[in-house]
């Protein structure tokens, strides 16, 4: 899309009224375009005011309780009765060994609140940098048998210090989270946990020394930041 075409999408973007593809493109553009960011800010304010056109409705008291009890120092995730079959050794066997020290930075969801977007715009900017400097042949990730629709690609930046992992076809994890792993000497190291957007897509930005990266995998877990995978495999490097 041209700059003008992208700029024309900003009002609809402020209303959460873009399709996933356009939204992704515009967000990537916004990360590097001050003019477009300046156009967005007042329209986001206008969109916020539109909320007041809806009649106010008193919520039930339980909603307040739910929110306050959910507001704990650590994010609370509902444990889900996920299958606990020991799939990791099988996955690990497929992955090549690699020596990497890794730090996960962020997950980027396609659809998010406007201000959350701002935070994500920075990440998106980094993603664009990664994609722009990445190898022409991203490393593919293939689906485990239980999620044949899923696929992914790993774009490693030229300096091998960061990567963008782009995934599609992920089923919604209504209870639990997706976890990205990196394998080192056959042992998995947790990277970031994430949720796909409504279309089943997710982009995770990884910052780490990836010079000797062997592979990555995605599992579905009950909660984030587990030391080792317990849930079923969803994706793994081919």
């Amino acid at each position, binding site marked *: 899309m041209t700059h003008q075409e992208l700029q*024309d*999408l*900003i*009002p*609809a973007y*402020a*209303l*959460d*009224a*873009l*399709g996933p593809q356009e939204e992704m493109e515009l967000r990537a553009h916004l990360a590097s375009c001050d003019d477009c960011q300046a156009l967005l*800010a*007042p*329209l*986001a*304010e*206008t*969109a*916020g*005011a*539109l*909320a*007041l*056109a*809806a*009649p*106010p*409705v*008193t*919520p*039930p008291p339980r*909603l*307040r309780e*739910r*929110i*306050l009890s*959910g*507001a704990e*120092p650590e*994010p609370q995730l509902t444990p889900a009765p996920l299958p606990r079959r020991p799939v990791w050794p099988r996955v690990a066997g497929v992955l090549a060994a690699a020596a990497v020290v890794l730090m996960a930075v962020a997950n980027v969801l396609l*659809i*998010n*609140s*406007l*201000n*959350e977007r*701002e*935070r994500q715009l920075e990440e998106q900017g980094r993603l664009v940098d990664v994609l722009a400097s990445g190898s022409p042949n991203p490393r593919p990730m293939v689906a485990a048998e239980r999620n044949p629709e899923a696929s992914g690609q790993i774009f490693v930046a030229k300096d091998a210090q960061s990567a963008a992992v782009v995934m599609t076809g992920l089923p*919604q994890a209504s209870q639990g989270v997706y976890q990205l792993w990196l394998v080192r000497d056959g042992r998995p190291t947790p990277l970031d946990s994430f949720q796909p*957007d*409504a279309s089943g897509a997710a982009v995770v930005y990884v910052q780490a020394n990836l010079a000797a990266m062997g592979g990555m995998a995605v599992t579905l877990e009950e909660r984030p930041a587990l030391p080792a995978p317990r849930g079923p495999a969803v994706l793994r490097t081919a």
Partner: protein
Amino acid sequence: MTRTDTREEQRDRVLMERIARGDKEALASLYDRYAAAAFGVASKICGTRTLAEDAVQEAFLSIWRRPGSYNPQRGSVTSYLFGAVHNKAVDAIRHEQSLRRREQAMTDRPEGSGGEEVVEAAWLSVRRVQVRTALQRLSKVQRDALQMAYFEGVTYAEVAERLGIPLGTAKTRIRDGMIQLRALLSASGVEE
């Protein structure tokens, strides 16, 4: 922006600063200030009480968990909060992909939406009237496009399809409507 709005905005920002420090009472205060407005817009978009409650809950908890994502340089706390609620509500109904279910559920309107008295701060009621007045002053085609996109949670492409107009026309109506609305709200003091 009126003096009252500025003062209220200042209060909101103080609440956000306290939330950023993990002050749960500040979250409760923010909720009490805007729960009816937030639940109102979520109910209008979602149509069902359950989805609306979930959207409001997710929005407030996302603010609690990532308070740093609010940038005071970029806009007001209310637009940030309502933006989060709108986003979660739209996400919920798109995820549900259940227009039919939604229509059925509309017959089972959320309790409280049937003219029940809602206690709301006077300044917020005033602002509400200003927004509705501004909306009424848009051309009908612009208003329809904006309301469909915002309150029905559809993309501009779906707006075009539903209204039977070309894609470009839908985009233009939304753009012109937003620009016009912004001008009207600025003139009435809702926005700076």
